[in-house]
């Protein structure tokens, strides 16, 4: 059933930038070396089950944690274990396994069972768990093997995000070519069969009604499925925003969707579920969007998990100084070490031009390619593609109370109010009343600030200081909610997908 009329009005609409990927998928070969982090997606770090010098197959489990909330990790190439190293990575320091590939492209099956429809519930869950897909989503896919903080029977809603609200609006509709709609529908059926009580919700970009109708038709057999055509507005992909938008319920900021009995997955994750269940395929590769003017070609590419950034470095324009960013340009991780790998959760890599020089008399230029919350640039009125770079576009100045940060804040904070308090070192309990803990670090306030103040960093600083004083989400947010699995979980709030 298509449900229209759901709207999210705060936030910021990014659209029409240079460097958005074309809807074209290019396979790339097997890298000669992969680095597999032992913590990927949701869950604790697993311990390695192989030694240096071991021969491994693509799809073979190389790390598992029996008693922890985690999902196994695989080798993604056929080859030998070369080394272990520590990475400073997305979620902090993590151990990783370096594997040298023999160049062959085949992989081994997850298990030797038959078609997924024949399997018992437990065997199906085991297959998903062993394939690695249960670590996807911000709080994992629950199974009886401890892949999430709740069990499959606790899940009330599954939300599938088909909307791309990042800077380049990467919707991954390339995944829907070649029978993708059917694969998505099958994936949803797999999820439904391990979480029978859950209602399924799918979001799509409003501009692609044809796709919405196709998907809605393909899934007409699934009970209680709803599709939502939405207008893309950053940061709608965040659980904190999408759950209130479509389910009309308040979000316990700082906690995981699983605490509400909700699982949020993106389209690619559901496709992986389908592949795992139906094709018995372990999670070893990933479709990644190559965005940003720095790449010679902007397109989607299929890469092995653990593939190092230097592998895509050849695709970058020569003589261009670029910054590599994993995932969203507003929240993403800067990759300075070219040997860092992409993990299971990576959706896009952006090669963003570094620009030291602001431009001659830039403040007075017409601005044919400048993006702004204000309409002071000609680009707001013409359909040219806007350009992106790392320049600050202005000098830091005192706050003038323009209120742009409040305009865009997706969670109803007045960011400049918190900034003034933190800056004057007035970090006390009243900041919690100003809902500082609603902040989910989307960084939009810093983005729109004309005075170039890093507002979001001040908000983070305020949160950290409050935590030191013993005021945190558990005292501010938690009392208003009945959350599931709260006694089991701890400190797993930083996961992303």
């Amino acid at each position, binding site marked *: 059933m298509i449900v229209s009329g759901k709207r999210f009005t705060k936030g910021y609409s990014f659209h029409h930038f240079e460097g958005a990927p074309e809807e074209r998928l290019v396979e790339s070969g097997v890298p000669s070396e992969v680095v597999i982090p032992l913590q990927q997606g949701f869950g604790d770090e697993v311990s390695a089950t192989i030694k240096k010098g071991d021969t491994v197959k693509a799809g073979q489990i190389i790390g598992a944690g029996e008693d922890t909330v985690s999902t196994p990790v695989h080798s993604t190439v056929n080859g030998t274990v070369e080394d272990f190293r520590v990475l400073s990575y997305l979620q902090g320091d993590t151990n990783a396994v370096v594997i040298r590939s023999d160049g062959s492209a085949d992989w081994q099956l997850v298990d030797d069972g038959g078609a997924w429809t024949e399997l018992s519930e437990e065997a199906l869950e085991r297959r998903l768990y062993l394939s690695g897909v249960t670590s996807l989503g911000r709080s994992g896919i629950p199974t009886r093997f401890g892949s999430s903080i709740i069990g499959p029977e606790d899940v009330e809603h599954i939300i599938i995000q088909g909307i791309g609200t990042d800077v380049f609006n990467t919707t991954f509709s390339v995944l829907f070519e070649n029978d993708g709609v059917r694969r998505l529908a099958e994936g949803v059926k797999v999820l439904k069969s391990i979480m029978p009580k859950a209602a399924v919700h799918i979001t799509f970009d409003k501009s692609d009604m044809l796709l919405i109708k196709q998907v809605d038709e393909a899934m007409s057999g699934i009970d209680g499925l709803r599709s939502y055509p939405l207008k893309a507005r950053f940061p709608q992909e965040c659980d904190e925003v999408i759950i209130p938008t479509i389910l009309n319920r308040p979000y316990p900021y700082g906690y995981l969707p699983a605490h509400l009995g909700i699982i949020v997955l993106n389209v690619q994750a559901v496709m992986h579920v389908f592949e795992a269940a139906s094709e018995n395929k372990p999670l070893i590769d990933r479709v990644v969007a190559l965005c940003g003017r720095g790449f010679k070609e902007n397109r989607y590419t299929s890469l092995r998990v653990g593939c190092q950034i230097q592998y895509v470095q050849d695709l970058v324009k020569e003589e261009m100084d670029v910054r590599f960013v994993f995932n969203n340009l507003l929240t*993403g991780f800067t990759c300075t070490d070219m040997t860092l790998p992409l993990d299971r959760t990576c959706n896009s890599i952006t090669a963003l031009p570094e620009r030291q020089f602001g431009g001659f008399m830039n403040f007075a230029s017409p601005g044919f390619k400048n993006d702004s919350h*204000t309409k*002071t640039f000609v680009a707001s009125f013409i359909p040219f593609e806007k350009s992106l770079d790392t320049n600050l576009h*202005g*000098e830091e100045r*005192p706050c*003038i*109370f323009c209120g*742009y940060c409040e305009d865009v804040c997706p969670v109803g904070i007045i960011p400049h109010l918190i900034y003034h308090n933190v800056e004057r070192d007035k970090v006390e309990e009243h900041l919690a009343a100003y809902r500082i803990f609603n902040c989910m670090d989307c960084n939009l306030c810093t983005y729109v600030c*004309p005075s170039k103040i890093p507002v979001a960093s001040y908000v983070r600083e305020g949160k950290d200081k409050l935590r030191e004083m013993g005021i945190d989400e558990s005292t501010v947010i938690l009392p208003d909610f009945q959350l599931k699995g709260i006694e089991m979980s701890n400190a797993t709030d930083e996961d992303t997908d």
Partner: protein
Amino acid sequence: MKNIDLKGTYDRIVRIRLLKNFEIITDTIGGILFGPSKVTPGAPHIVDSIEIKRFMSAAIIALIPSTAAAIYFWGFAAIKIIIVSYVAGGITEVLFAFIRKKEIEEGFLVTGLIFPLTLPPSTPLWVVAVGVIFGTIFGKELFGGTGRNIFNPALVGRIFITIGFPEIMTTSWIAPLSDTITSATPLVVYKSSQVMPPFLDLLLGTTAGSMGETFRVGIILGGLFLMFIRITNWRIPIVYLLTVFVMSLLGNTILPAKIAPPAFQLLSGGLLFGAMFMATDPVTSPFTKTGKVVFGILAGIFTILIRAFSGFTEGVMFSIVLMNGFTPLIDHIVVSSKYRLEKNER
């Protein structure tokens, strides 16, 4: 590439020892010419292209119609007043930048233009200088500079000279496109004899008044432009003007001898100029949306009351400055009640 070389040349020039002492000035010029050479330190990796220089430039652009009309109506006299305002205020600003060892801030660009536009066209130049220096020092710098001031600096200067030099400020009016000195602005005429000029004259600016306030078509266009490009918020000017309209409608039916009818109220004096360009100053007006509405309503009420019942004929600048003083209180009440209310709801 050419630009980068220019910047390199500039950087080499400012490294000359003699210029070292004037780093604040050379940095400011460098900033204006070449923009920042800084990049984002991390997430967010990209930022909005708007900057304070452009923000303030947009306000200057919106003031072009009023400024051009002032120059058209009063010629060289208007140009002289504007130049004196910029020079005297600019020197004050630079001195404070040296004292504070910070870069010169752009806010003065707007203050330095708004202030002369609020003056009668034959104001002596030394009074202009005194006013702008007083406004810059006591309206802004003593509070810590742009962003920390409570009162609109242009209005602080204007009020200082209004009270300090009452004879000059009430007899310096000149009818547009003539040399005749008159003491009769439309508001003064109405107060003494309840006679109103044709509204078309008021709109096109052919009545006596402060330099920037008479060409009202230009003010409306400039004000709408600022709202449209999101530099100012519509709430303060629209609510302010609506309140004046409603209050004078009511007042005129009850006390026609004291309170002028709404259309005349809206089109006379500095109301439009004040509502569009001065009440909207983000620093000195409330940042909360409800606060902006409250600000507009109270400013409207005070304007009507001062115009009708005080010894002054014009109440716009007093009511805006009065409301500037109330701004922190309004915001405080709105913010605390907002967060308390929502706490109770849950």
